[in-house]
């Protein structure tokens, strides 16, 4: 790691403890005057992903962009065009692709072990506890990019797309008034299945994906790396999963890792991006998959309606609907 760029130098200095040779800069544009890095990791806030990624691509750098790829499909298209024009790799960071339990569930679904997939139920939420140092993630932007939809949504949509194919949004509701949402309910139609997605920044949801097949039901714990349960009769059997990913840039690969924590999963994601650059393999999530994820969220916002809140009094329900952002836009 040669460069760490952040408008707040203190953030870069904290990271410099791990990357002692790295130079710190507070301005991205000055980075390019020193040459082009082979690979740029874009970890900035979501609404800046496209600007920063396009700048890197146009300076001949490959890019691994954190999820979501951008906040609009139009921005994704500009990123795609830049990657193709410059013939650079544009990969999207979806860390959960490297969780063994998630990969095992994909295998279960695709191998037909669960039978014909009938439906799914995805619920992820808890009180937000990420110790953020600025309120940037909570400010409303016209084109989205903040809120629980753009925070947890990409994980859900990418996983469901991985399991069941491309998604179409049938229904989307949230609880934002003039701010950004902290609760979301969605229904998705996918190639293989149809089901619901609930996301929350304030309520303790089950943090599970349940997949209902004609032969069996599978339960994936979204906070667990290596456990998956399958029920073929009335009893669930928990399986410890192990799925190995390349951990070097050799062909054939000699070192493999079955990640057991975030650091290992992140390492595998980085290695796969480098393999995409050097060995022309596909990254786990390429620019097309990244774009699809953003298109689902964009469609969701275009059909948004107020969340159903029958627990509020009738008067407050009416006030909520009247103040909901879809009523005031």
């Amino acid at each position, binding site marked *: 790691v040669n460069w760490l760029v952040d408008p707040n130098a203190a953030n870069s200095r904290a990271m410099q403890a791990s990357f002692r040779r790295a130079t710190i800069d507070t301005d991205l544009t000055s980075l390019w005057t020193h040459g082009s890095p082979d690979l740029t990791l874009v970890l900035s806030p979501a609404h800046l992903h496209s600007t920063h990624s396009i700048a890197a691509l146009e300076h001949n750098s490959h890019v691994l962009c954190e999820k979501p790829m951008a906040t609009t499909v139009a921005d994704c298209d500009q990123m795609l065009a830049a990657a193709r024009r410059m013939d650079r790799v544009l990969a999207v960071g979806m860390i959960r692709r490297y969780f063994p339990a998630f990969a095992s569930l994909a295998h279960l679904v695709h191998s037909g072990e669960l039978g014909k997939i009938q439906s799914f139920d995805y619920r992820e939420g808890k009180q937000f506890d990420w110790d953020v140092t600025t309120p940037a993630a909570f400010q409303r932007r016209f084109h989205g990019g903040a809120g629980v939809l753009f925070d947890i949504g990409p994980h859900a949509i990418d996983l469901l797309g991985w399991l069941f194919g491309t998604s179409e949004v049938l229904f989307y509701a949230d609880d934002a008034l003039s701010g950004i949402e902290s609760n979301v309910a969605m229904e998705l139609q996918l190639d293989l299945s149809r089901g619901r997605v609930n996301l929350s920044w304030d*309520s303790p949801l089950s943090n599970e994906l349940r997949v209902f097949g004609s032969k069996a039901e599978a339960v994936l714990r979204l906070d667990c790396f290596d*456990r998956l349960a399958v029920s073929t009769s009335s009893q669930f059997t928990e399986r410890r999963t192990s799925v190995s990913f390349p951990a070097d840039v050799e062909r054939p690969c000699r070192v493999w890792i079955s990640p057991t924590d975030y650091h290992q999963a992140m390492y595998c994601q980085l290695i796969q991006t480098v393999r995409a650059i050097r060995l022309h393999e596909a990254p786990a999530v390429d620019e097309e998959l990244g774009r699809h994820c953003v298109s689902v969220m964009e469609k969701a916002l275009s059909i948004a309606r107020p969340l159903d809140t029958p627990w509020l009094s009738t008067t407050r329900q009416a006030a909520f609907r009247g103040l909901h952002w879809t009523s005031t836009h």
Partner: protein
Amino acid sequence: LDEHTLNDIAIIGAGGYVGSSLVESLVLDGDVSVRAVVRAYRHFARLCRFGSAVTIAVADAEDSVSLIPAIQGASVVINLTTGSPRGIIRSTQAIFEACVRANVRRLIHLSSAVVYGEVSSATVTDDTPPPTKHWMPYATAKAVSEVWLRERLGAAPLEITVLRPGIVWGVRSPHTVDIVKRLLNKTAFLVDRGQGIFNGIYIDNLLASIRACCDHPSGVDGFFNVADAEPVSWREFFAALAIDLDFELDSLPRVPGDRFPWSKNAAVDYVQSLPVANSLYHRFKHSIPPSLKSALRSQLAGPYEYHRFARSYAKKPQVDRETWHLQKVRHKLPTTKFARHFRFSAPVSFREGISKTVSWLSFLGLTKRLPHCVGQPQT
């Protein structure tokens, strides 16, 4: 709007359960200016949906200097903070001092019915001084804070109203979710056949009580118990949830009330409640790596329940000391003083509260009936 109404309200501890619910109710009712004061940016997550309807400020509730700019100009300050026992006392003092220096007219301080423990006597009134020694550090801190405020009542240049709610239950209540999860996992239990008093207040009734304090023209100094109108036993509370949560009340394990049944979890609880351990826990809880926290939690929680509704009841449930004591409450605290003084009657009945709670639990996916949706999984 009544001319006496104090309509610029600052809520300290607005990122918590009661705080965010209060903000929501005030915004939807729409006739007051709302300032939310939180300890850290992460608490914006619960409040950001209100956008420009709420002003959010970050301040340290234990530091009056930090609080003054956040509450300057407010007519009412509501203290909904929680935290370590020492922090509860420090924030009570700092918020009071900040209110005095910022010329705030009224301070509404949320204490807790837990200061009276098991309410072993029927003669406890709103003005009975609570004991300041309790096995639970939280209860001790709340009682000490009450004593500190009582010494300033009447002499301070601001009005002080202290409310004592019992268990705040209902929509978004962590306590309710905890009970419901235990009922679903069939690890819940009843002490003494559930005859103890469920000393609760439905969240909307608490919010209405707070609002009544804001709207009252004057003379609000004092200590007031607030609760639901109906006396409800623990058995009745569980029974009201039984149909939607698919459990048989009579199959719940019974725990004797005469002697606390120690277990691994109870021992951990006990160690955590020791003042030194409690203080260390609150000091370092944010620096414990999430993976270690999660590993410890899952070790204590036991095997994961993959069924949405567990099939069999725990033969020997893990009994925690707090729940055991709460289920041993003998008397409902009187609320006539509050009702008389503020001409208040709780707007939500117990049955209505249960119905609203079940609709929210259904949204969370915790009931037998899931809300209607296309492609809904079979339950």
